[in-house]
C-alpha cells in the first residue's frame, strides 16, 4: 500500500511544474542551510545533492544548464570561501571527476582496462613541476644540497602554456605506451599498464641522479602558480563581499581559481566525450569493445583507434596533473601510486562505465566517502580515544584502541568493496550508460520470447 502511494508521489513529482518547484526548493534549502550553518556537513551534502536532483527531474534543458552553472560557478565558490574545508572538497571532487571522465574514455568507450592511469597524471604534474620551479637549476645538485637562492626558470604565467603542453606530452606518453602493448588481449593489457604506472612512479622516485630531475622521494617544491588576474579579484570582492562578510585571503582566491579551472577542464572533457561518443571514432571504439575480431573484419583500424583512445584519455589526466601541481605547489612520487589508479577506476565502475552522469556521480561519491566519511570516522574515533568511554558488554576501553586503526587510511578497503560489490550486483553502475540500458532491455525482451 505504501509502495503504491510512494510511486504515485514520484509520478506527481515528475509532472507539470513540480520538477521545477522541487529542484528550486532543494537548491534553496541547501543553500540557506549552508549559509546559516557553514560548518554542517549535512547542509553541505544537501546542497551538493541538489545537483543530482537537478539532473534527475525532467526539467527544461536550458533551466538545467543555467541553474547548474549558477550552482557550480556562484554558489559553490561562496560556500567554499566561507568554509575552506568545503572548497578543498569541491576542488578534489572536480579533479577526480575530470580524471574519472578521462579514464572513462579508455575503459568505458574503447574497453581497454588501464590500471596505470595515474601515470599520465604524474607526467602532467612533473612537467609543470620541473619547468615551473627552480628544478632546472637544481639539476647538478643531489637532493637536499642545493643552494637556497636559485631563480625560477619560467614566470608563473607560463602555466597556461604548460596546460596545453601537458595535453600533448601526456598524449604522446599514451601513444608511446600503447604502441608496443595494444595488440595484447584485455587482461594482459591491464597488467602491463599497471606495470607502466609503477615504472613512472619509480622513475619519479629515482631520477634524482645522475642529474636531479625529480628530487627523488622528497618531491619538488615550491612550484609556481600563475598570477591572479587583478580585475577578477576586484570583481569577486565587489560582487561577493556583502554575502561573505569579510575580505578574502589570497590563498583562498587561488583555490577558487583552481576550482574554476578544473571546472573548465571538466566542461571541455564532457563536450569532447559527447561529441566523440556518436562520432565515427566513438562508434568504432564501441565496435572494438564489443568484439575485436568483428571490428577488424568490418575494416576498423584497430591499433590506430586504440592509440587514439589511450592518447585522449591520457591527455586529460595530463592537464589535471599540471593543474594539481600548480594548486598544491608540490609534487612527490607518493601521490601517484597504484592505489590512486584503482581509486579512479572504482569511481568509474561505481557510477557506470561509459555513462557521463554516472561517472560524475561516482567520482563525487567516492571522493566524499574518502574525504568526509572516512576522515569524519577518524576524527570521531580519536575523540573516543581521548574520552573515558568504554564499550559496555565486552568491557573494552576506547583508549586502548590502536592508533594504527585510522579509518582515513583504509581507502583500499573502500575501493575493494566498491569494485567487488558493483561487479557482482550491478556491473553497469549506478547510472548505466544509455546504450547499455537499451542492450539490457533488449536482452530481457529476448528472454521473454518463447524459444
Amino acid at each position: 500500500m505504501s509502495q503504491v502511494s510512494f510511486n504515485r508521489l514520484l509520478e506527481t513529482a515528475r509532472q507539470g511544474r513540480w520538477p521545477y518547484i522541487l529542484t528550486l526548493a532543494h537548491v534553496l534549502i541547501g543553500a540557506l542551510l549552508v549559509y546559516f550553518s557553514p560548518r554542517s556537513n549535512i547542509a553541505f551534502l544537501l546542497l551538493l545533492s541538489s545537483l543530482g536532483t537537478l539532473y534527475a527531474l525532467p526539467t527544461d534543458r536550458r533551466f538545467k544548464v543555467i541553474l547548474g552553472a549558477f550552482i557550480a560557478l556562484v554558489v559553490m565558490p561562496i560556500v567554499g570561501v566561507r568554509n575552506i574545508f568545503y572548497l578543498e572538497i569541491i576542488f578534489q571532487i572536480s579533479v577526480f571527476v575530470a580524471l574519472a571522465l578521462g579514464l572513462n574514455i579508455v575503459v568505458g568507450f574503447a574497453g581497454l582496462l588501464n590500471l596505470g592511469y595515474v601515470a599520465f597524471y604524474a607526467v602532467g604534474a612533473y612537467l609543470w613541476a620541473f619547468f615551473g620551479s627552480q628544478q632546472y637549476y637544481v639539476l647538478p645538485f643531489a637532493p637536499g644540497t642545493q643552494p637556497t637562492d636559485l631563480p625560477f626558470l619560467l614566470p608563473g604565467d607560463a602555466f597556461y602554456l604548460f596546460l596545453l603542453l601537458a595535453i600533448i606530452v601526456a598524449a604522446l606518453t599514451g601513444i608511446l605506451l600503447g604502441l608496443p602493448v595494444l595488440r595484447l588481449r584485455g587482461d594482459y593489457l591491464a597488467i602491463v599498464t599497471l606495470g607502466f604506472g609503477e615504472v613512472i612512479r619509480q622513475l619519479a622516485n629515482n631520477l634524482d641522479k645522475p642529474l636531479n630531475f625529480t628530487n627523488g622521494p622528497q618531491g619538488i617544491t615550491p612550484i609556481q602558480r600563475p598570477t591572479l588576474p587583478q580585475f577578477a579579484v576586484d570583481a569577486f570582492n565587489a560582487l561577493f563581499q556583502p554575502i561573505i562578510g569579510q575580505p578574502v585571503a589570497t590563498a583562498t582566491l587561488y583555490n577558487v581559481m583552481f576550482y574554476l579551472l578544473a571546472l573548465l577542464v571538466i566542461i571541455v572533457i564532457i563536450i569532447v566525450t559527447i561529441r566523440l561518443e556518436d562520432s565515427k571514432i566513438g562508434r568504432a571504439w564501441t565496435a572494438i569493445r564489443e568484439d575485436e575480431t568483428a571490428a577488424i573484419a568490418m575494416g576498423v583500424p584497430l591499433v590506430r583507434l586504440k592509440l587514439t583512445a589511450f592518447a585522449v584519455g591520457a591527455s586529460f589526466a595530463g592537464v589535471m596533473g599540471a593543474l594539481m601541481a600548480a594548486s598544491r605547489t608540490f609534487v612527490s612520487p607518493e601521490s601517484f601510486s597504484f592505489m590512486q589508479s584503482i581509486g579512479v577506476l572504482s569511481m568509474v565502475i561505481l557510477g557506470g562505465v561509459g555513462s557521463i552522469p554516472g561517472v560524475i556521480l561516482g567520482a563525487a561519491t567516492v571522493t566524499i566517502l574518502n574525504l568526509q566519511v572516512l576522515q569524519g570516522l577518524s576524527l570521531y574515533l580519536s575523540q573516543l580515544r581521548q574520552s573515558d568511554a568504554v564499550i559496555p558488554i565486552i568491557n573494552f576501553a576506547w583508549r586502548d584502541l590502536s592508533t594504527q586503526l585510522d579509518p582515513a587510511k583504509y581507502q583500499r578497503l573502500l575501493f575493494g568493496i566498491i569494485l567487488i560489490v558493483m561487479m557482482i550486483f550491478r556491473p553497469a553502475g549506478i547510472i548505466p550508460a544509455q546504450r547499455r540500458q537499451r542492450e539490457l532491455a533488449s536482452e530481457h525482451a529476448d528472454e521473454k520470447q518463447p524459444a
Partner: protein
Amino acid sequence: MLAFSLVSGFALSAFVIVLAFLFQNTAVGASVMQRFGVSLVNYTLLNLPQVLMDGLTLGFVYAAIALGYTMVYGVLEFINFAHSEIFAIGAFVGVEVLIALAAYGLIGGQNSLLSAYLWLLVALLAGMLVAGTMAVLVERIAYRPLRGAPRLVPLISAIGVSFFLQDAIRLIESVTTGQFHRIIPAFGNFDNRIPLFTVAGNTVDIQIKSLIVIVAAIIMLVGLNYLVNATKVGKAIRAVAQDRATASLMGIDVNRIISMTFLIGGTLGGAAGVLYALKFTRIDPFVGFFPGLKAFTAAVLGGIGNLTGALLGGIVLGLLETFAGTYMSIFTMGVAGAEYKDIFAFGILILVLIFRPQGLMGENVAQKA
C-alpha cells in the same frame, strides 16, 4: 629443469663476463679498481657464484608463487589478481604462529634444532591451510557469480578482492597487535651459512633458509606435477581446463574441480608466503604486491598455464633480477642500480609479451581471444 637453470645461469654469467672484458679498460673499470682494488673482470668473477646462488633462491620463491597463478589460469583463463594477497595471508599466518610459539617458549633459546624444524613445518602447514581456505572462499564469493561474464569483469572483481584483503589484514593486525609490520622471531639455525665451495680464495655459501626455500619449492612442484598428471583429481582438472562443458557432460563436477584448483593454488601460495617470510624476515599487509607481480611475470615468461614453465620463468626472472641488481650499478657507474630492480620485471614482461607471448614453453595465449 636442472639443465635449463644451468643454461640460463651460464648464459647470464657469460654475458656479464663478456661485458666485464669489454669495459675493463674504460672509466667503468677504473672506478671499480678505485673502489674495490681489483680489476673489473676479477670483481665480476669473484661475485658470480654468490649472485647465481642468490638469484636461484629468489627464483624459487617466484616459482612457488607463480604456480598458483598458472594453476588458476590454466583452468579458468583468468588472472587471479588476489593471489598476491593469498600469499600475504599465508605469510602472516605463518609468522603469527611462530610468534605465538616463541611467546610460549617452544622455539628459540634452548630448544632443540629438531623442534625448530618441526615447528617451522607446523607454521608452514598452518599458513597453507588458511591461505587455501581463503582462496576457496574468495572464489566462491567474488569469482563464481561472475563466471561467463566478459573477461574484464572478474579481473576487476579480483583487483577489488586484492585491495580488500590488503586492508583487511591490516585491520586485523592493527586491532589485535597494534601494528601491521611483523617480524619473524629468530629461532633455529636458519640464518647460518653452509659453505659450498671455494673459488680463488672466495668462499661461496648458501644460507640454510635459502636451501629450505629451494627444497620446499622443488617438493611443491614435484607434488603438484604428480597430482595433476597422475591422480584422478588431476585428470578432472585437466579435463575442465580443456573443455568445461564437455567435462561436465562426462560427469565431472566442474564447480568442485574449480574450487579444488583454487584450494591447490592457494595452498601453494600460502606455503610460498611462509617461505618468503622465513627468507626476508619482515612482512606487512602489502608484502604480496611486488612478489605477486613478479611471479605473474614469471608465469607469463615460462608460458602461463604450464607448470614447469612457471618454475623456469621464476628461475630466469630471479637470476635476471639478481644479476641486474648486482651488476647494473657497477656497469652504469652508479647511475642506475638496484633501486630499479622492482620495475625490471615489467620490462621483461613487456618484452616477452611483444616477442614471445606464448612464453618459453607455453601455448600461444595472445591468439586465444
